[in-house]
């Protein structure tokens, strides 16, 4: 503990976050301290370059951290806030796991057989540049419920990353592992199970960190765009994305910031869970 406290890096980090919060606070309250006559010429200047005159550009419109904190304490006791947490986390983990369940076998199929690679990969590569969110309208038309539509988009987002990582992982398996296996008399199935599968796991694990980030983006966006009114949980159970959108529409800007920070924290948690799972599945990576 003492060692941690005397670590200069830690203090520098704390200082910079503190400075950040202070600057934010000052900027956000600029409407108040820019009001007096003293600042009139400055305000005119802002108006002349076509910006809002009453406060500092951009930062002036953001709610101050002190206000956000006060609001947050109030929200902590609201049940629907925690329901939003649950909804978003659930969608992210479910979508990601579904993407893995389908993406890993698909990727392995492409990696193992040149024929399937020749058939499947060009189509995959052509569809990949289309952002998952561009699929939202098509998804809503196609799937029966809102929930399944969102789930599909979430799945798509992570699916591309996972397949690419599986392919990359399979290609980089040292050719000597194959030679060793074959010289020890392994059948093709054995080689698949004991060389290819474990060989691709590290890149899947590493790649899933990126995939997780994309999944969150998609979930939040889908929640905001599709109105979030899910059958589960009623009108306020639409997830954190919906929470933010709703706060915006309702004019309570502090809650927007609360929502944003909450998602950041939730993201940490889900990545942590994934890394923990990854360590369980690839124990040999620790030794490196």
């Amino acid at each position, binding site marked *: 503990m003492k060692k941690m406290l005397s670590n200069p890096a830690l203090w520098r980090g704390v200082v910079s976050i503190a400075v950040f919060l202070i600057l934010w606070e000052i900027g956000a309250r600029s409407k108040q301290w820019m009001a007096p006559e003293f600042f009139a010429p400055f305000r005119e200047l802002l108006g002349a370059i076509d910006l809002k005159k009453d406060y500092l550009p951009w*930062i002036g419109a953001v709610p101050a951290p002190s206000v956000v904190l006060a609001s947050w304490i109030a929200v902590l006791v609201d049940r629907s806030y925690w329901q939003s947490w649950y909804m978003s986390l659930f969608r992210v983990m479910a979508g990601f796991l579904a993407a893995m369940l389908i993406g890993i076998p698909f990727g392995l199929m492409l990696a193992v057989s040149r024929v399937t690679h020749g058939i499947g990969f060009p189509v995959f590569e052509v569809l990949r540049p289309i952002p998952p969110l561009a699929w939202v309208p098509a998804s809503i038309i196609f799937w029966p419920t809102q929930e399944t539509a969102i789930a599909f988009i979430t799945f798509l987002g992570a699916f591309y990353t996972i397949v690419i990582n599986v392919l990359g992982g399979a290609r980089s398996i040292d050719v000597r592992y194959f030679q060793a296996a074959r010289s020890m008399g392994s059948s093709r199935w054995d080689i698949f199970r004991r060389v290819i599968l474990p060989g691709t796991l590290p890149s899947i694990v590493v790649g899933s960190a990126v995939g997780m980030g994309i999944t969150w983006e998609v979930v939040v966006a889908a929640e*905001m765009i599709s109105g979030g009114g899910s059958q589960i949980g009623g009108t306020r159970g639409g997830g954190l994305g919906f929470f933010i959108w709703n706060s915006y529409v309702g004019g309570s800007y502090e809650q927007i910031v609360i929502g944003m920070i909450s998602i950041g924290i939730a993201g940490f948690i889900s990545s942590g869970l994934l890394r923990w799972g990854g360590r369980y599945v690839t124990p040999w990576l620790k030794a490196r």
Partner: protein
Amino acid sequence: MDAALGLGAADEAIAVLRETTPFGDASEALLARIAGIARRARYAAGARIYSADGAADDIFVVLSGRAEHVFKPEVGAREALRRVTRGGVFGWAGLLLGQTQRLATVIAIEPTEVLRIDTEALVGLLESEPLEGGHVMERFATMIQREFTLPALLAQVRRLSGPLTEEMSSLSLTLYRLSLWLRSPRPYLMLVGFALFLGFWYLAVEVWKLPRFREMPGLTTVVSEWLSPSPTYGLSLYIAEYYQHIAMSVWRVAQAFFLATVLGVPVGLLLGWSRTFKEYVFPVFETLRPIPILAWVPLAIVMFIATESAVVYLAFLASFFATALNTMLGVESIDESYVRAANCLGADRWQVFRHVIIPGALPFIFTGLQISIGVSWFSLVAAEMVSGQYGLGYVIWTSYVMVRYPTIVIGMVTLGIVGYVTSALVRIAGDYLMEWRVRELALAER
């Protein structure tokens, strides 16, 4: 014992030539001619096939058995010893510029049978077929580099001389490469893949009218709409507005990408290079980064009032984080030895930064830029769907709202194409700036 090939043996010769690297995809006609000038020879186990001081007259192709091929040390091969079996080719020293002597000693380990092909006769034959011949020589060069682990410099495989070769235009070369590609299974598999995908789409929506697929816009509807001079729903290749939307989206991405690169690369370089800077700045960076870009949308609208800036800001933010992070990782992954070597050689801190850090991090920076442009598109589309007034994301969303379904697909496909092109441009810029890496990767490829 040397013997010219009889009729049946010619087939066997062609078969083994097909298994070699240089002749592997040559035409039947060329292979038959090569078999025509080849002679067979047999060596007992332990017999020396040739030694390193002999004249480089014949090229050898192994039909059966095994031989050991050892380079003389002066040659500088990465691995001097190599074993050759059926399909292996050796004795090609005569193909190198100015090389008349053997480069290695070859001894048969088992009873070995070979084809001997006179080098000069082979060169003459290849010169008479400039396109194919040139290709075979290229494959010899590849084989020498990769299988015999000799550096590129020594692999100065002779260019075929002759008037036809000089006049060969790059067009005919491209056509020849194309014909080679067409002979491989790849383009047909690709067609099968697309046929399956498009066929399924067509059948599911328009023919079988499967339950969920019924409502979707069908393939023929979309294509006819896209290509129609007066489209029912207002957007096609012929309509000016279509291109306005594309231009709008591209312009926004360009702004965002430019800003993100101009800010992100220096920040990333500093984060990687200076520990103090990283200790101060990285915590704030890492606190803001996990917040999904799209969670910023409402706040961005509040901050920027004008939705145009808000949309560009969102695309910029995503891009910035990706670029800065990858640049930082690039700097951190530079092998310490390079920095130490530069210090030994008297470079000061700034010179190390300019001559070691920046070029060393460049590959990572470009990977980051490719990711960054993808991410930029991703955020842009979402932002446009929520609050734009032009642009492809806006098109997709409003088409949905106004029940113009085929236009949705047109928008999606356009997005895909434009996204791919911009990403490829970044990659090409990277390849141009980092010629050394392209060459290094080409040599290392399996």
